[in-house]
């Protein structure tokens, strides 16, 4: 078998998300590339949550809805998902609380209760049964439990053994020779990339789907030497970050659309005061509270245009975890190099899905910004050819450094004089050319699929997993801008040369990338837009093409 998809579902609180992750780890140790999609609702108990684990002998970056094995801890899992069960697929269910005509019923809850263990431990029985059905060596399961569960280890192993004895082997999932890869969510990748590029402080108010960056960095703050602060609200958060960078330390903040909306006044301050801040904007289905635990790409134009007045920013949008790692590190270095705010746009699908990655951590290194090395006469906003003024920080001897929200002179004092206003605006504008010059040295657009095809799929962000798979199957070329502002039109035009059809694919209702392309004189032939707050799967996308 070259590919397998497993769905595990239950109520919130049943522990399906963690079990999904453990299934991913087991398949990872079997040498497969893994992708995990977590679908959950905005509640703590009840409802219906599920994870889909897809494993393949080749790189996999997206799930499919068609399922080989369905593991049900509640009735809804069977009722909602049995239609997706492939021919010959298997249902494993807890017959203590679920009725099913077919499949393998195990009285999981009953067993756990009889032994006096917490209900959530029934997941171990399901894991045992799954491994048996797939012909996976119990030792692998045992090792995964030991390495990943801190409490109830012995009990979990005992229950897994019980589950392992129940069913018969149905599939033969071959063990592959590939070494297990690193399993990383998009948010973890962002956190690690920024850490590698010298992040010193992370400040964030909790908001789905950005929260797991906060949790991840708070968990490892001592290992990374990073301060992690939860402020009173998003406005305080971004302004704290601005204080931190003014004082010379690298700081980042993460949020979703609503929190980002609150930050926009201070974003504009970062533009005026030339503060190198990094914002992670992980989108969710909006407007307003929207569908808070589901995905959508509705904030691209917002990210590019947010804030009053005109000022330069850098916006990047990774599509999968490896890109997220490299781009987070790259962006942190760039905002310091150019002293502009940077926004890394993610979404629920990238932030919270789990990917198999291979990372070259040495590729990201902290690069030094332009620093003031003089002895006197420091001017924070010195006029320079490329618009970049040398940095100095409070506490530095013989330096007075004045940051300000007002239009200012070179020293940083308020000005209302017309010629000084124009000079300072022109200085900040010059940074755009400097940024573009730098971008031209880098990969700003990712090309995939059949590279010489005349038919092009253009997309951004987390759609890349589905789009690339479909393009490989159907022979399309894929263009994925990694940078959205400044928009790498030079690279896109080059890639579009000689092509005939351009199809834009986005998970929003208006085609925001298509709008940007139009502003640059490129008209797409067709847009495929999905806005049911779920990501594209390759099968769904193929139907649209």
């Amino acid at each position: 078998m070259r590919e397998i998809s497993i769905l595990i579902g239950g109520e919130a609180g049943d522990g399906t998300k963690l079990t999904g992750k453990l299934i991913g780890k087991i398949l990872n140790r079997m040498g497969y590339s893994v992708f995990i999609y977590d679908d959950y609702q905005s509640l703590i108990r009840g409802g219906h949550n599920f994870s889909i684990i897809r494993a393949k002998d080749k790189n996999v970056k997206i799930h499919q809805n068609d399922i080989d094995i369905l593991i049900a801890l509640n009735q809804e899992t069977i009722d909602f998902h049995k239609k997706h069960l492939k021919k010959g697929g298997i249902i494993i269910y807890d017959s203590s609380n679920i009725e099913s005509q077919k499949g393998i019923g195990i009285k999981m809850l009953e067993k756990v209760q009889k032994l006096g263990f917490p209900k959530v431990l029934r997941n171990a029985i399901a894991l045992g049964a799954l491994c048996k059905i797939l012909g996976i060596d119990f030792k692998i399961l045992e090792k995964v439990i030991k390495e990943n569960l801190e409490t109830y280890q012995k009990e979990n192993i005992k229950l897994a053994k019980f589950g392992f004895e129940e069913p018969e082997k149905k599939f033969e999932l071959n063990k592959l020779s590939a070494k297990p890869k690193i399993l990383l969510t998009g948010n973890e990748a962002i956190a690690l990339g920024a850490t590698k590029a010298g992040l010193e402080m992370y400040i964030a108010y909790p908001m789905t789907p950005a929260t797991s960056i906060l949790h991840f960095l708070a968990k490892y703050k001592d290992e990374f030497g990073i301060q992690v602060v939860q402020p009173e609200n998003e406005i305080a958060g971004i302004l704290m970050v601005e204080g931190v960078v003014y004082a010379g330390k690298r700081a980042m903040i993460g949020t979703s659309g609503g929190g980002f909306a609150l930050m926009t006044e201070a974003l504009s301050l970062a533009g005026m005061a030339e503060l190198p801040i990094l914002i992670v904007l992980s989108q969710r289905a909006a407007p307003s509270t929207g569908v808070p635990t589901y995905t959508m790409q509705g904030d691209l134009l917002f990210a590019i245009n947010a804030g009053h007045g005109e000022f330069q920013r850098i916006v990047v949008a990774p599509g999968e975890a490896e890109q997220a790692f490299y781009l987070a590190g790259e962006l942190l270095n760039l905002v310091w190099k150019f002293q502009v705010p940077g926004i890394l746009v993610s979404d629920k699908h990238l932030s919270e899905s789990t990917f198999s990655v291979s990372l070259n951590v040495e590729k990201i290194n902290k690069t030094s910004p332009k620093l003031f090395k003089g002895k006197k006469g420091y001017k924070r906003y010195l006029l320079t050819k490329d618009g970049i003024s040398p940095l100095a920080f409070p506490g530095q001897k013989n330096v007075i450094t004045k940051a300000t929200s007002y239009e200012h002179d070179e020293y940083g004092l308020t000005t209302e004089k017309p010629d000084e206003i124009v000079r300072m605006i022109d200085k900040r504008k010059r940074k755009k050319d400097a940024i573009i010059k730098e971008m031209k040295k880098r990969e700003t657009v990712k090309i995939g699929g059949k590279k010489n095809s005349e038919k092009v799929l253009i997309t951004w962000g987390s759609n890349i997993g589905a789009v690339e798979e479909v393009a490989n199957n159907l022979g399309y070329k894929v263009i994925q801008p990694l940078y959205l502002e400044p928009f790498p039109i030079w690279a896109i035009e080059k890639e579009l040369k000689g092509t005939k059809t351009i199809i834009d694919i986005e998970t929003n209702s208006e085609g925001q990338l298509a709008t940007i392309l139009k502003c640059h004189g490129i008209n797409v032939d067709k847009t495929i837009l999905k806005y049911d707050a779920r990501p594209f799967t390759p099968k769904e996308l193929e139907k649209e093409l």
Partner: protein
Amino acid sequence: MKEKIELKDLNTYAQKTWCPGCGNFSIEIATKLAILELINEGFAKKEEFVLLSGIGCHAKIVDYINLNSFYSIHGRVIPPATGIKLANPKLKIIGFEGDGDAYNEGISHLIWAAKRNTDITLIVHDNRVFALTTGQYTATSPKGFKGGSTPKGTFEEPFNPIELMLASGATFVARGYAARQGHLKELIKRAICHRGFSFIDVLQPCVSFFNTYEFYNQRVYELEEKNHDVRDFERALKLARKWDYSSCDTKIPIGVFYQTQKPTFEELYQQKSISEKEKIQNLKKILEKLR
């Protein structure tokens, strides 16, 4: 070796645009003198001071003082001040806000700074009116205040920032009066030297939109002359409630109401720094765990 500076070293070339007679002049001088003395006494170096301001007449003060500064946006002095202090705890942070900044737009930050005991000094230029926007009522305007937005007088009652700060856990709570410059300078010095969140509400007459010189001159008295024990929280609360920022029939105490010691936010939040090599080793170890 102690650094010796003169008052003129703290001046900038910016032209002052406050109204003649404005209470801001006095706050500026008191602040400069306090900092000058602290530098010359060896308490801190010139480059270690960072001033912040919000938006309003008061905020121009950072343009007029030749020290590191962060000229923020309306109501947002405390968050960047907190960030700067977290990033470099050696710095001495002094924030200036108007009553509109501190008590209207940025009230949440004020309460949180007191709750956290962030080691910064906050000086509120409380003229009890929005002056730069030509005269509207603020959180501390008296009931019945007539302004552009309330021509028949506001029906809202002001709140009492001293009482609010005591209730929020501030560890240094004081009130000053712009026309008592010497007293104010001493207050500012004590506030800067205090470890923890220091709060001074400065009664500041606005000659253009709310001239209160006469009102305050008749009522103000200094707590320092009354042997008030600053460690007595209950007494501080009682004194704070003496004047409700609206009534005219009472005396107004100025000086330090309350002072106590608590661990500061920065002390509790200090992160042990690690070497680059160690960090990368840890990062690689964590990645291995994620297989």
